[in-house]
């Protein structure tokens, strides 16, 4: 009985705080995406022809986001019945956009106008450790083009 009560309390806490954090994070992401809109991102490895070769620099940003208790249980239910794991979809989306934003912030500090060859790496942390903690890392990196003129 005690276990069930603890379980329900964790579930409610996870839901309330997880949702609050997620809403706040999305708001901040959308705001900052507008702020850094002038830094362009492309996954192409080569520059368009006739582009003057400017100075270049490696820029990167990474983020680790943990799931909350509610998301874990919701994903557990999805594991039984199948379907879209919506709880994780929004989590990964946040991580990806946040990593790109941090990379753009890095580019901004270098005075860059565009980033080419953008790549994303992802890793799950604590994988296989009794599922005690589930968090995801997304690492975004690319080649920033810096026009000195």
């Amino acid at each position, binding site marked *: 009985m005690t*276990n*069930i009560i603890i*379980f329900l309390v964790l579930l409610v806490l996870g*839901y309330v705080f997880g*949702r609050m954090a997620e809403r706040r994070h*999305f708001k901040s992401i*959308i705001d900052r995406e507008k702020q850094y*809109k002038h830094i*362009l*991102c*492309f996954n192409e490895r080569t520059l*368009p022809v006739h*582009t003057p070769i400017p100075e270049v620099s490696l820029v990167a940003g990474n983020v680790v986001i943990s799931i909350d208790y*509610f998301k*874990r*249980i*919701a994903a*557990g*239910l*999805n*594991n*039984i*019945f199948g379907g*879209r794991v*919506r*709880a994780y*979809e*929004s989590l*990964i*989306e946040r991580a990806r956009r946040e990593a790109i934003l941090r990379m753009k912030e890095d580019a901004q500090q270098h005075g860059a106008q*565009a980033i080419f060859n953008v790549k994303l790496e992802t890793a799950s942390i604590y994988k296989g450790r*009794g*599922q*005690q903690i589930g968090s995801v890392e997304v690492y975004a990196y690319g080649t920033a083009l810096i026009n000195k003129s």
Partner: protein
Amino acid sequence: MGYENRDIPEGINVSKAHPLKEFAWLAAGLIILVVFSVLVLSLMAEHLTRYIPFSLEQKATASVSKRYADEHPLNQQQQEVQTYLQTLADTLVVNQGLDDDMSITVHYVDDDTVNAFATLGGHVIIFKGLLQKMPHENALSMVMAHEIAHIKHRDPIISLGRGLTVYLALSSIVGIGNNSTFEQVLGQTGLLTMMSFSREQESAADRTALLTLKRYYGHLKGAATLFKLLQKEEAEHSAPSFFNSHPLTKDRIKAVMGFAKSIKAPADSTVKAFPDNIHKALRPPAETLEKAENQ
């Protein structure tokens, strides 16, 4: 350069659907699935475990029982109580009409716990605490006959079979989910069902016990006394652990009382007192001391 980053519309990866809605549906689905499979499986397990021969139960519990007896030797006085209990049990076995291949072994435990229970292999465990609460032999016979009835009905092995099946089923559902939290919550549900008899099993044991007492004593005087006593104990806050394994529901008491009334007791029916040596062995230590001082 002619390159640009166009705005990506929101909501491609994140759906607008409320997370609680899907959660509620899936949780309800899981609960229905679990309840349904537990019901079906426990019915099947109850049906099948009856076919496990009693001798197998005895064989499986023999070593545990022997080890316990070796580790907890009884002194002479305790031995007398044990012999008395065993004799009473044997008499009740005859009156209850157990199968020939079934036998009852009574274990007397010198402990203040107010409890008695029947377990696998025909072993009935009776604690001193419960015996001290019994006003006369008829009340004790009711307890004993109730426990023997559990064994007659094969309740311990049925409960174990049911519990194990449910536990395995739940673990395998959890295995698909592969989630330790589910495992904890569901695992406990399985263990709970493993250790207890169902309400139906308790009522059936009551009925058999009453019929046994009727055959042995010719009346049910003491049996009703026992239930009144237990009811009183329960009312007086200190519900002894006896109730944990034997929930004393109102319906159960009502059924017993009704049955007792329906049988006309002969006018001269009396309850049987405990033999002197047993009475002496069960006396609480404080009382014994007092008597010694008075002499």
